[in-house]
């Protein structure tokens, strides 16, 4: 697929740990490079953010964005791993486009991830409830990937 090859060539060392499956490309990105990668995916390639998945692994808190390249049916999935489980911090991609606003707010309240520069960093689903910490964590501790 030419778009994938061009993306890999353009991103170069900014991405690592690439897993290339049929129509799926998973790769790791450092927080400092996330803006460049997302800008390229959204503005240059015309990808659409389907959603993002947060989870706890042995390495830390992981946030996996799912960008759909609708013209080809391909998925580009940048993965950000935050090793400080008690205080995971990363930059928000909502300033780039509004479609990420809700899912980042949800991940912030469920996984305690602080999204820097998020225009509205308040809980999405538990706005009217007392602040819980890492709302899913009691379950995660038992089963890690």
């Amino acid at each position: 697929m030419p778009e994938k090859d061009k993306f890999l060539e353009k991103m170069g060392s900014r991405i690592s740990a690439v897993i290339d499956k049929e129509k799926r490309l998973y790769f790791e990105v450092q927080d400092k490079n996330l803006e460049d990668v997302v800008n390229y995916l959204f503005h240059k390639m015309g990808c659409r953010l389907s959603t993002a998945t947060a989870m706890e692994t042995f390495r830390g808190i992981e946030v996996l964005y799912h960008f759909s390249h609708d013209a080809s049916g391909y998925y580009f999935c940048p993965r950000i791993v935050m090793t400080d489980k008690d205080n995971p911090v990363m930059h928000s991609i909502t300033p780039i486009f509004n479609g990420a606003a809700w899912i980042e707010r949800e991940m912030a309240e469920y996984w305690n991830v602080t999204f820097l520069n998020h225009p509205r960093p308040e809980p999405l689903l538990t706005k009217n409830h007392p602040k819980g910490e890492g709302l899913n964590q009691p379950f995660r501790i038992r089963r890690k990937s």
Partner: protein
Amino acid sequence: MSNVIPVGPYHPLLEEAEYFTLTVDGETVTDIDLDIGWMHRGHELISEQKTFTQSIYLVERICGICSTSHPLACVHAVEDVDNIEIPERAAYIRTLVGELERIHSHLLWIGLAGHFIGYDTLWMWAWKYREPILEMFEVISGNRNHYGVMRVGGVAVDVDTTKLKELHNILDIVDKKMDMIAKAAKDDPVLKSRLVGVGVLSKQDAIDYCAVGPTARASGVAIDVRKDEPNDAYSLVDFNEIITENGDVYDKLVVRVLETIESTRIARQCLEKLEKVNGSILNDVKEIGIGEGIGRYEAPRGEVFHYVRTDGTNRPIRHKVRAPSYVNIPTFQASCKGIPVADALITLAAVDPCYCCTERSIKIINRNRDRCQLELLKLSREKTEKIRREFYGSK
């Protein structure tokens, strides 16, 4: 001077609990704020404690209308982990059930939209002719809803070939009536004067908010999972992707009406193929390996997205669900600003929002899991006791 009009969380227009705050200047909406979080379902978390097969039944209950779309996206995700193939007959059955779901969902919305603007004839027509589709589901699966058809590696229910003629006949009835509804909806001067130019979502806003489904296609964004990543039998059937340009409520109506007609075409092609294609409906899947998979399906409201990560056991260690309403609802912030208050409610309804889909997750305030369960048990017992007292008095 600005005033605030609260809509919800319990409002006649909203079938489910949701809360909108409209800031108005005179009659014009100047801002809208959305407050979700009134329902907590816990599907993602529960799914991680179920086997892959059990999860299919669970996600089927995320939404009563998309009760094929979620299981289909879920099995696509699990199949994506190991690139599992499905038999051809199963592909046609999946596509048939998926398209019948689209017809009944769109008819449901068309009826509701008619009702919201006071056009009750359209409402009664649409819901009357939705009934035969539910009968088709009953013929195929035995259920009018929650069909239990999907399985990893194929389908659980075969379509009885002796019933194919009956299914064709029902589809003939729906086809004729859809033509009538399409004419009534597209050419009606009342509908046009009420809906044209109302709640416009521009193409740029649809892209910016990552909108999906008819909401995006009505704004000229050509995205449809059935075309972009044709799973199941979508690469084997002929159909058109319906796209309009204006992005208003009327275009959203037109997209859904025309998509319903396309869906009847697809369903008919599947029925014809099921007469000829025989064989297995389910491949034997012994185990799911370690990995991650993405599954999606074009639900009536747009792309349903499921992500699973597996560790080689029979359960997912992470199961992420994203319903189309989750990305379509925030578009209100673009489509509702600057419109009169009277148009706001039909604009809110135009994306066909499903709040129980949107709020598929759970909140756990207490870190102690056992205590949480005990609290839930206590609440359940208190409710049962309250109901018992209401029925039998204080005995």
